[in-house]
C-alpha cells in the first residue's frame, strides 16, 4: 500500500491566540509552532489483520509515538514525550460506508480524545494541541477524505 502524501496546513491560521494572565499582566499566548501540526494525511492501513483508516499529523520536530486505545475500534497515537496527537486509527468495521461516514467517525474520535484530555490533568498546551489538530483536519477535510461519489 503506497503512502499518502502529506497535505500542508496553515499552522499560523489555526493557531489562534488566547488571553492569559501572568503575574497579573494580561498577555496573548499562542501555541508553540512545535505543537501545531504542519501536515496531515489520511490512508487505509492494515494492522494485525485489521483494516483501519488512519489520520496522521506531522510536526516541525520528529518524535516517537505510542498507541493508546481510546474507544471501541478507535486508537490514538500520542507523542512519547510531548503527548501531542500524532494520529487517529479508526477500524474499518466502525465505518458503515466511505465518504462522510469516515469524516464523521474521525471527527467523533478526535472530539472524544479532546474530551478525555479535558477531563484529565494533561497540560493545557496538549489539550490545545488536540483542538488545533482537529481544526487542521477540518481545514483539509475535502482532500483528506474520499468523497462518496468517487468511492
Amino acid at each position, binding site marked *: 500500500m503506497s503512502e499518502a502524501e502529506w497535505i500542508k496546513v496553515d499552522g*499560523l491560521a489555526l493557531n489562534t491566540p488566547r488571553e492569559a494572565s501572568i503575574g497579573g499582566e494580561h498577555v496573548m499566548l499562542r501555541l508553540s*509552532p512545535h505543537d501545531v501540526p504542519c501536515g496531515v494525511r489520511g490512508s487505509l492501513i492494515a494492522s494485525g489483520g485489521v483494516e483501519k483508516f488512519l489520520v496522521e499529523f506531522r510536526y516541525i*520536530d520528529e518524535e516517537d509515538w505510542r498507541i493508546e486505545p481510546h474507544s471501541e475500534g478507535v486508537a490514538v497515537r500520542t507523542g512519547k514525550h510531548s503527548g501531542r496527537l500524532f494520529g487517529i486509527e479508526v477500524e474499518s468495521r466502525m465505518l458503515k460506508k466511505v465518504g462522510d461516514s469516515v469524516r464523521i467517525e474521525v471527527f467523533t474520535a478526535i472530539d472524544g480524545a479532546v474530551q478525555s484530555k479535558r477531563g484529565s490533568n494533561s497540560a493545557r498546551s496538549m489539550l490545545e494541541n488536540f483542538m488545533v489538530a482537529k481544526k487542521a483536519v477540518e481545514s483539509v477535510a475535502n482532500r483528506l477524505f474520499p468523497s462518496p461519489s468517487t468511492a
Partner: protein
Amino acid sequence: VIQDGAAWAARRIAAVSFSAYPASSFLGSGMRRHGLRAKIYPTLHVMALTMNAAAVLVAGASRVDASGLSAVPILRPTFAAIHTHVWWIVPLFICLAALFSTIRKHVGEPWVWDTIHHLMNTYRDFVFSDERNENRHHHRVTLFRFHRVFHYPCFLVWPWESRLIPVARSGHATQNTDTTFVAPDDADRAEGFAGKTWATFSTMIVNDLPDLDTDSSDEAVQFYAKQAFFSEDWLRRRIKAKRINGRSFCGIPIRVKGREWGVIVIDSRSPKSIKKEAEAHYDVMGKVLSKLLERV
C-alpha cells in the same frame, strides 16, 4: 598577555554588574567560543582515540611473556611493570577515553554550531526584512538552551537554579552577553521574557515598550518591567549602565524530538518590528534547527 588578561578581567567585572544573576557571569559565554570549539573538538577526538589505542596496547603487552625478551634486555623491566600495573592502567585509559568523548559531545560539533548561527542570521533577515538597512545588532535572534540545576554549568554557580542560557545569537556583535534567566520547576518564579516563554511554553509577542533611559519616569520603568517580565532592579541597573533595552520581543518555545529544549527570543529596538508572521518564518527554519539540535 598580562594587558589582555587585565582587559578581559575588567570586562568580566563590568559584565557581572549587568547580569540578571551576577554569579552566572560566565554562563552565557558559550556563544563567543566558536573559534575555541573548533580547536577543542578535534583535539578531544584525538585524545580519546589515543587513550583507547593505549588501553589496547597495554592490554596486549600484558599478555607478552617477558622471559622471551632476553635479546632486548631493556624491554624486560618495561613489560614487567606493565604486568604489575595493568589492572589499573587499562581501566584508567578507558575512563579517560570516555571522559574525553563526553566532553567532546558536550562541546558539540563545530559545523553544527556554525550552521545554527547561520540559521539565526537567516531567520533574523526574514523577520526583520523591513529593517535590513539598520544596524544588525538592533534586531536580534537569540537561542537559549534550558539547563537543569544539576547539569553543567548550572551546578557551578550560586544560586543553584535551572536556567536558560544563551548558546547562539544572530550577527557578529553583542555576542558577549552574560544574561541568563532562571527557569525553575516552580514556573511562577521564571524570570525575564525568555523565562516566561519557557514557563508557559507558548509563543508570546510584546511590542510598544517604552524607550528607557536615565531620564525615564518610574512609571515607564515599572510598565516595561511588567510587560517584559524583568525585575525592576535588574532593569534599573541596565539603565544606569546606559545599556539599550529592546522595545519589542517575541519568544518561541522549542522542542527537540518532542522534549522541551529551550526558547528562541527575538528582540528589536523598534517598537513595532515583530509581527505574528515571525512564526510563519520559523516553520521553515524550525525543521532544520530541530534536526541540528538533536546533535548537541
